[in-house]
């Protein structure tokens, strides 16, 4: 068995977060977790179909990065996109309705689990094929620089965060984009969610050099390794990268060491990951850890956190009812949205 990679300890001074920030992040993580637990339930009860890839366990990455972005920054995701969409501000109702294929879904029921889009929230979308979302995100980042420099729009300092997995970093598009982003100093974050597996392929079996963050060095951009189960560590790293990007100093590659608590998708038998490995990572649950931190730092007490959890339970229930009660797309609109004029 491969030696477990040691998680980097978070060295920088503790992120100075206020109680308000802390609770906002906590709420976002809880939302991600509860929302997806509900998806699993619906799927196993035969109410939700297709490929559904859950994010349980990785919440510190989505909340750590996206909640450090500005509202008008861009987020690009993958097929594992529900939680990124939620962190980006897409209402739980719209995401859930999309999962039920309803007209009220953020992609009008046309996209489904792997294709959450929201122009309103600058969510560039979920992409079902690995890697293909990275160049698209690069384009959004390019656009910001273009607007600022060519069109004289000083407000165009948006940053784009592109999320993808360890398996994806063996795909050519990743490297092509690292090169272009660094070459043109684009305001972009490459966020690798290294959860050690690409479906049934262990990261070490797929890559000749498992430390992904190191790859940045030969493309001339900073590469940073971070404990992806520690939301404040992720947030601190993200904030620094965002500041650099916003200042026109170029992209950063952030490798978050994390783990998914469920199978690759809800259809995956998940037989290859050892019980040991799962248990070890389960014990690092980013939500429990952050809860402990909030209390320890006196940023919140049990009551407050419980109230948030209850609130989010309500949000998820509401989203579910909304989704279930929403209308299906109108069959007469089968041909709508092919062209821009439709």
């Amino acid at each position, binding site marked *: 068995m491969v030696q477990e990679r040691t998680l980097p300890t978070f060295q920088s001074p503790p992120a100075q977060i206020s109680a308000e920030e802390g609770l906002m992040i906590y709420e976002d993580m809880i939302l991600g977790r509860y929302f997806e637990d509900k998806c699993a339930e619906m799927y196993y009860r035969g109410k939700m179909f297709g490929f559904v890839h859950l994010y349980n366990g990785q919440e510190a990455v989505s909340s750590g990065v996206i909640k450090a972005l500005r509202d008008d920054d861009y987020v690009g995701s993958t097929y594992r996109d529900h939680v990124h969409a939620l962190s980006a501000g897409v209402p739980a109702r719209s995401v859930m309705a999309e999962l039920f*294929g309803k007209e009220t879904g953020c992609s009008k029921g046309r*996209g*489904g689990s792997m294709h959450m889009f929201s122009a309103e929230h600058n969510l560039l979308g979920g992409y*079902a*094929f690995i890697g293909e979302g990275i160049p698209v995100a690069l384009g959004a980042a390019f656009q910001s620089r273009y607007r600022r420099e060519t069109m004289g729009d000083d407000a165009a300092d948006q940053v784009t965060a592109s999320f993808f997995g360890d*398996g994806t970093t063996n795909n050519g598009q990743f490297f092509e984009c690292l090169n272009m982003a660094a070459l043109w100093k684009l305001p972009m974050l490459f966020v690798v969610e290294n959860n050690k597996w690409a479906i049934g392929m262990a990261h070490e*079996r797929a890559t000749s050099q498992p430390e992904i963050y190191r790859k940045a060095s030969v493309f001339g951009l900073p590469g940073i390794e971070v404990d992806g189960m520690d939301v404040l560590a992720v947030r601190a790293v993200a904030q620094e990268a965002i500041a650099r990007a916003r200042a026109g100093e170029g992209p950063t590659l952030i490798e978050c060491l994390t783990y998914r608590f469920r199978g690759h998708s809800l259809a995956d038998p998940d037989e290859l990951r050892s019980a040991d490995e799962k248990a070890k990572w389960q014990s690092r649950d980013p939500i429990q850890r952050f809860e402990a931190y909030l209390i320890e730092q006196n940023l919140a007490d049990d009551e407050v956190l419980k109230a948030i959890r209850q609130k989010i339970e309500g949000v998820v229930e509401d989203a579910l009812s909304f989704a279930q009660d929403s209308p299906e797309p109108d069959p007469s609109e*089968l*041909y709508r949205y*092919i062209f821009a004029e439709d």
Partner: protein
Amino acid sequence: MAETFLFNALRQAIDEEMGRDQTVMVLGEDVGVYGGSYKVTKDLHGKYGELRVLDTPIAENSFTGMAIGAAMTGLRPIVEGMNMGFLLLAFNQISNNAGMLRYTSGGNFKIPLVIRGPGGVGRQLGAEHSQRLEAYFQAVPGLKIVACSTPYNAKGLLKSAIRDDNPVLFFEHVLLYNLKEDLPNEEYLVPLDRAEVVRPGQDVTIITYSRMRHHVMAAVKPLERKGFDPEVIDLIALKPIDYDTLGQSIRKTHRVIIVEECMKTGGIAAEIIASINDRFFDELDAPVLRLSSQDIPTPYNGRLESLTIVQPQQIEEAVEKMMQLQV
């Protein structure tokens, strides 16, 4: 005879051919330890070792090119596209190198290569996982394109494809893997270039392939009850197409309906209609009818999705309507 799932029929084909010929190997994402997303290579990794059942990184363009290079130098690789759609990333290798290289090299190299995996519209898998690439690849010279549709033909065709000295694009259908059928115990091959007359008949020729064969057969039942006698042909070979078999049928029925799952524009039916026009125009008593998927990315919503592909009911109606046409 043993009742066998289609995915297992494919697995047997690979297993038998790997046992028979040491140069046969499989590569792709999760084909090894995981046993393949649809279990087509289950346990073969344990049996044949990790070089012969090679788990690759997610780098479709390069591992397809690698398979081409291995084929040029004497191996007989089988590339699994976990979903055939992913091979859009390998389009260049498939067209320029698998398809064209032998010609461009003036016959220096042959490329015995099978590229296989699931295509087609599944159950709410979304647009990208519901593609029908046969339409995109049909114009590429030098490729053979095959679509299996039953456990029996799946096994026999895959064995033939592995033994073929040319690059073969081999389409399975994501919704057919769990079809069951009794398969012979003895070895058999099914030829790559022959269409199958699934049901002989006199009234009208229904040409189809892959999963739509089953939609057609579902429509045939009520049609039989109503007294119609359609001939059903499963193309099997999408390139080159078996016009001998089609021609015999058309000369008999003088009426043709094509049922396909790919999109209408530029689909397989388009080419067949054009070739029927070239070859059998005078035999036709009515314009060929094509029933194709709608020209849209497959929507996720279940109802829209089912409207996107042809349903048995539509086939039934189309036959009735065509039979009412006065000649």
